[in-house]
């Protein structure tokens, strides 16, 4: 075996680009492993696991780029390294002859009709561009996370001053005027407005609205921390006002993890003052009684259904396929591996402690796994969290981390059931079902026994990946395909109950 490790100091490429280069190198003749990544501490651990942490790689800094690969023979390794160099120096926009602007000011000069700046630079550097965009009169979708609380409040106060909106930080999803921004789906236009602190939460809701026959006016993201006490729901409240005044919005859905109590009350009070029906979904909150025009829904799918009925839709909720596979299996524990944070959180709240304690990286204290890369007992993991994504693309784009984890779970005889989400739409992987199906086939071989897998698919007929084809691919790999997270969790719970799984 021939190993090559190349360090390119202070060379930056975004994580998606690096993932694509890694994937391309893995296709090169004789290459058995290829990792092209920024030398962050987490990535250095990954290099170490693959035997690629040379002294140079160890000494590299987070700003340095590492190209590490293993090939069968020297000639192949050298050829692959040359290919890496070529891919990295390739102009990213060779498709146009234009020179790209280097600043937001220059971009606005070239495109004065621009209304939104979408910002996805590393969190430590995100405040500057976001502030500049607001100063220039743009609205902001701030995908970056790890922006300080103080900076978030500063940006949102500046937005208020300028009469604009900051969607974020840590906001990956929006649908504005039918345009999918970030990770979002192709959803029919219609009278339901959605506002969410939860990206995949908004994705599931908007996809179900589409299925049920209605549509979305706008889906506005607020960022994950907007409803904390310190931020006070600044973006949520402004978004409510915006949709209250929007003639195209007749019904509003609000979705978030439970806010701080004062913020929850402020949001509900604002909802009550809108002259339109509002469905509020605080994920995992115990059911609240309706208050005038404000109804409460306990799950994402219930929120979507309720809103659809208010909008006059008559479609039926979709049903899972392939559930007969739940009749067999061995092992004791549920292993949930999620790319969507809100879906993971919802699963955790729905399963609760019905079957004994459930470990999760979203939990606290002794329910947080000692080793983030090893499941013990019932375990439900959000693979989009920092411990899994430092210096790497999000699992909705880069399936590698989750694929490796699926194989590890399959090798564990205690794993009884896998629970996964598959989100399609813009921003997501080109063909996530095929990538997952290949892994599931490998997993089945490793397990050497029936291993039921429930996959919740989040998408619409209009999405670029082809919804029906994605479902068919998953079904062909033996997966049970659910259409909402709540349904998937119900199936998983029924399975565990039928196997008489008792709290420890």
């Amino acid at each position, binding site marked *: 075996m021939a190993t090559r490790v190349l360090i390119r100091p202070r060379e930056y490429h*975004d994580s*998606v680009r690096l993932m694509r280069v890694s994937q391309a190198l893995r296709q090169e003749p004789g290459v058995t492993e290829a990792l092209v990544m920024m030398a962050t501490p987490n990535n250095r651990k990954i290099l170490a696991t693959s035997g690629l942490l040379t002294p140079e790689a160890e000494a590299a800094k987070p700003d340095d780029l590492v190209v590490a690969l293993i090939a069968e023979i020297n000639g192949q390794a050298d050829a692959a390294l040359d290919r890496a160099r070529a891919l990295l120096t390739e102009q990213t926009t060779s498709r146009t002859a234009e020179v790209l602007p280097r600043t937001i000011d220059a971009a606005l000069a070239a495109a004065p009709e621009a209304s939104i700046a979408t910002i996805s630079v590393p969190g430590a550097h995100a405040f500057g561009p976001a502030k500049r965009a607001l100063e220039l009169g743009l609205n902001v979708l701030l995908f970056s996370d790890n922006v300080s609380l103080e900076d978030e409040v500063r940006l949102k106060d500046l937005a*208020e001053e300028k009469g604009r909106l900051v969607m974020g930080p840590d906001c990956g999803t929006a649908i504005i005027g039918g*345009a999918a921004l970030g990770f979002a789906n192709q959803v029919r236009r219609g009278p339901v407005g959605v506002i969410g602190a939860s990206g995949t939460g908004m994705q599931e809701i908007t996809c179900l609205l589409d299925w049920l026959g209605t549509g979305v006016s706008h889906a506005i993201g607020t960022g994950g921390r907007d409803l904390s006490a310190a931020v006070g729901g600044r973006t949520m409240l402004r978004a409510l006002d915006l949709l209250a005044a929007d003639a195209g919005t007749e019904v509003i859905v609000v979705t978030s993890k439970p806010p701080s109590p004062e913020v929850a009350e402020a949001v509900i009070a604002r909802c009550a003052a809108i002259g339109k029906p509002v469905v509020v979904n605080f994920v995992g909150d115990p059911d609240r009684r309706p208050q005038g025009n404000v109804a409460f829904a306990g799950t994402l799918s219930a929120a979507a259904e309720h809103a659809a009925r208010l909008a006059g839709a008559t479609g039926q909720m979709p049903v899972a396929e392939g559930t007969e596979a739940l009749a067999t299996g061995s092992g004791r524990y549920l292993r949930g591996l999620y790319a969507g944070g809100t879906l993971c959180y919802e699963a955790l709240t729905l399963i609760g402690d019905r079957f004994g304690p459930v470990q999760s990286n979203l939990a606290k204290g002794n329910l947080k796994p000692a080793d983030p890369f090893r499941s013990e007992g019932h375990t439900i993991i959000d693979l989009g969290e920092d411990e899994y994504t430092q210096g790497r693309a999000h699992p909705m784009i880069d399936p590698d981390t989750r694929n490796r984890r699926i194989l590890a779970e399959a090798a564990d005889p205690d794993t009884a059931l896998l629970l996964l989400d598959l989100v399609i739409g*813009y921003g997501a992987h080109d063909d996530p079902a095929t990538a997952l199906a290949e892994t599931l086939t490998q997993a089945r071989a490793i397990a050497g026994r029936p291993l039921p897998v429930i996959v919740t698919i989040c998408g619409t007929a209009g999405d670029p990946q082809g919804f029906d084809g994605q479902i068919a691919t998953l079904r062909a790999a033996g997966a049970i395909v659910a259409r909402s997270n709540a349904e998937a969790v119900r199936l998983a719970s029924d399975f565990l109950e039928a196997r008489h799984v008792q709290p420890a």
Partner: protein
Amino acid sequence: MSNPPDPSLIATPPSVINVGVELFADALRQQDVPVIQVQWTPPDEPEDDLMSLLDSLI
């Protein structure tokens, strides 16, 4: 509410300036949404040895 939000976010068809991951600009082009990509690179941090050189000169 002191300063009601300008409906600019939703009033006109969106036109986007993308700073960062090009994937998002690609997705907008797929939808025929006007988008312009900004070529962003991290701001230069001063090198440690340059800083100590400056310190020794001052």
